């Protein structure tokens, strides 16, 4: 039922429109008709009354003049047959009633009484009073308006009945056919056509629609063909991608395996190399201390070179061992609680002599807080960074400062050394890379910062660099106060 009442079709809308227009026309017409009729009929009634008075005065004059009272009676009774006149009384010049005639049961208060003298040859010979019904004009207006309104209503309803089929034939039926045609169309079937052959807009619309359907059908066919081709191409690509993926996966596995083997190899080799190297360093040191006898200058120089190269090689091996452990995933942080200030002082004290040797001021500031992390690796990171700072600073200072920030500890190592160009910063953490900014004779392994970054990441931290050539560099790393 509710569905039936919904105005959801052009047909229903048209019917509603026709009904509304009909009702609107009737109401507006009724209003206008009432206004016009009331004014016109009232005016006309007034004119009629004046005319009746004048006419009666004119016709009564000779009758009164000749005392023809039968004629007077006839005249006033015949005047009463006119609608609107309810009573007439005729008097002689002395005011004596001659004749009066009135409708039965008429009341004076319902009458609009007009008085008029009757004259003959300029002499008043009598008078008459004529009573016009007040209700008459209202009745006339009601009747006329009623007749017109009902007539108009009938006319508008008939007009609506005629207009609706015309509108339906002209607009609704073609649109309905249009809608049904569109409904019957589906992505697989665009062969339906409107088959409306007219010269008006509907015909143009139908022709345009047919043309559009034809174009769509053609496009759809072409699209389908293209789709098939694309599908074929996609299948080829998918197959190739799958093959390449398999190859890449295989290559990756092989690379990982090779890397693992490499790490194992490096760890083993480092261990095997470190043992003899430690012996070489130990014995070379004993000799240099003169414990094995006095050395001449040449010997001492040569031994010092052996001693330095050995130490360098040991450092290189140690770094390689650590890197290989990290890359092979063998290195796990050894968590413990330690005091940051105390640990920092240890590192400072170990590097202080080196700084003093170079005349570089070492500024140190670390808060007295407890950190849960790997203390050894923390020291390793700090030593690497401060050592590098001292190494690349000829004059000035190296400032080490740590602050507590949120739940992290942020450590800044700032130097006034040579610095570097911005475009070189991204190369800084690559393994075996040594930038050409060396100001010291001391050679690095090219693995220090690579190791530092991996250690920071091992401890769930992060590291960044800010540097400007000639002004120095600032390395800042962040670690969680409590390792998670």
């Amino acid at each position, binding site marked *: 039922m509710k569905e039936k009442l919904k105005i959801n079709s052009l047909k229903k809308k048209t019917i509603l429109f026709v009904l509304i227009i009909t009702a609107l026309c009737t109401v507006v017409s009724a209003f206008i008709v009432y206004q016009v009729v009331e004014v016109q009929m009232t005016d006309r009634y007034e004119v009629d009354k004046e005319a009746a008075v004048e006419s009666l005065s004119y016709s009564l004059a000779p009758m009164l003049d000749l005392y023809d009272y039968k004629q007077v009676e006839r005249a006033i*009774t015949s005047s009463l047959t006119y609608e609107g006149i309810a009573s007439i009384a005729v008097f002689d010049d002395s005011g004596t009633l001659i004749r009066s*005639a009135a409708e039965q049961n*008429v009341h004076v208060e319902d009458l609009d009484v007009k008085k008029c003298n009757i004259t003959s040859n300029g002499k008043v010979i009598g008078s008459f009073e004529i009573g016009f019904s007040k209700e008459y004009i209202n009745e006339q207006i009601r009747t006329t308006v009623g*007749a017109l*309104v009902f007539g108009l*209503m*009938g006319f508008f309803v008939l007009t609506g009945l005629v207009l609706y089929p015309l509108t339906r034939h002209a607009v609704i039926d073609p649109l309905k056919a249009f809608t049904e045609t569109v409904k019957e169309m589906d992505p697989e079937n665009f062969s339906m056509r409107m088959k409306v052959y007219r010269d008006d807009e509907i015909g143009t619309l139908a022709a345009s629609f047919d043309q559009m359907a034809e174009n769509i059908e053609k496009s759809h066919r072409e699209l389908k063909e293209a789709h098939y081709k694309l599908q074929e191409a996609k299948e080829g690509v998918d197959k190739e991608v799958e093959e390449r993926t398999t190859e890449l996966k295989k290559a990756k596995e092989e690379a990982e395996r090779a890397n693992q083997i490499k790490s194992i190899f490096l760890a083993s080799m480092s261990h095997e190399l470190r043992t003899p190297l430690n012996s070489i360093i130990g014995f070379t040191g004993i000799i240099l201390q003169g414990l094995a006898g006095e050395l001449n200058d040449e010997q001492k120089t040569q031994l010092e070179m052996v001693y330095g190269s050995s130490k360098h090689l040991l450092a290189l091996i140690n770094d390689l061992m650590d890197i290989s452990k990290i890359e092979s995933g063998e290195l796990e942080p050894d968590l413990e609680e330690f005091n940051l200030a105390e640990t920092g002082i240890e590192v400072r004290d170990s590097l202080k002599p080196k700084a003093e040797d170079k005349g570089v001021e070492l500024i140190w500031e670390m808060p007295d807080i407890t950190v849960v992390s790997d203390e050894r690796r923390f020291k390793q990171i700090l030593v690497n960074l401060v050592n590098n700072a001292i190494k690349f600073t000829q004059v000035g200072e190296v400032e080490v400062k740590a602050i507590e920030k949120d739940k992290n500890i942020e450590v800044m190592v700032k130097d006034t050394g040579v610095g570097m160009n911005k475009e070189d910063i991204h190369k800084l953490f690559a393994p075996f890379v040594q930038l050409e900014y060396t100001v010291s004779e001391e050679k690095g392994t090219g693995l220090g910062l690579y190791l530092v970054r991996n250690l920071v990441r091992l401890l769930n931290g992060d590291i960044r660099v800010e540097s400007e050539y000639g002004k120095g560099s600032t390395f800042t790393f962040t670690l969680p106060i409590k390792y998670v």
Partner: protein
Amino acid sequence: MNKLSWVVLLIIFSGLCFAQSYFYIAGTDNKLKPEIVVNATPTTSTVTWYTSIPQVHADRIANAFRIETGIDVKIVRNSTFIVRERLMSEIEKGKTEADVVTIADIGTFIELKNQGHLMKYTTPYYEYYPEEYKDPDYWAVFAAFGMCMAYDESRINTLPQHWTDLLDDRWRGRIGLEDINTAGSQYGQYYILREKLGVEFWEELLSVQNPKIYYRTEELADALLEGEIDIAGEFSIHTVYNYRVKKGTSIRGIYPEEGIPLILNPVAIINQTDHPEEAKKLLDFLLSQRGQELMQRLNYKYSIRGDVTPLDGIPTIDNLNMLQPKNAVEYGRKRSEYIPEFNSFLGGRK
């Protein structure tokens, strides 16, 4: 409801609208007017007036009287001799309805007075009437009219100039007269012209010229206008005036030099009246200046009163050679003799 039902329903609705519209209009046309109630001048009493003047004139004079006095007037109107017959018959039977009488036969009044049937009443208006037109304390002439000839101007070129010209062969079968048995004017003319021209005139006119007899003046006028006759041998001057001036016809009068019979129409109160006061008031009114003017305006007959201005366009009494009976008593007495004589000249026909 399907589509067809809706269409039928709307057509019916539309039809009902039109029907309602029609009923609105038709209802107005067919609406019956209420009954009409007519009221006339309120009256206190009644007076009965026997008269021979035309009904329409009698009514209007009675209306004027009713307005002025509040007395209703019952009018008994007919030709002079019919009224006379009725009155005499009623008097003879001992009771008449008549209170006031006016008929065109002075002889009747003389007879009534002599027989004591007239009430003695001296109206203050008697003084306005010459001696020959009144009988002090009994009657006075309410109206007078002359009897001339008449013709249709559109048809007749050669006219009779004298009464005796009517005896010309040319007018044989083309003359019209009134019925003497009812018309007082026809008797008056017969009497006066018999005195003037002799009985031979009438004998030849009635027996040789074969005149046509009409019972009312209007019939005589119609006969003239329709060409049924060429000459009306008995036609009152006031009727000529009516047809010429008021009605605008082509009837014209011929006034012979030898004389125009003047017919008198007196007014008197019958002695047996039950309404003497009302009768006196009616007689006063009829003889008053207003009553006379009204009579003259309505009936165009002559007023004998000197203070009543004659109508324009009508020959006055003074301008015509008016003939009256030499002896008014004889005039009345000869009626019973002359009327049969008239009829006998006509060959026994009435």
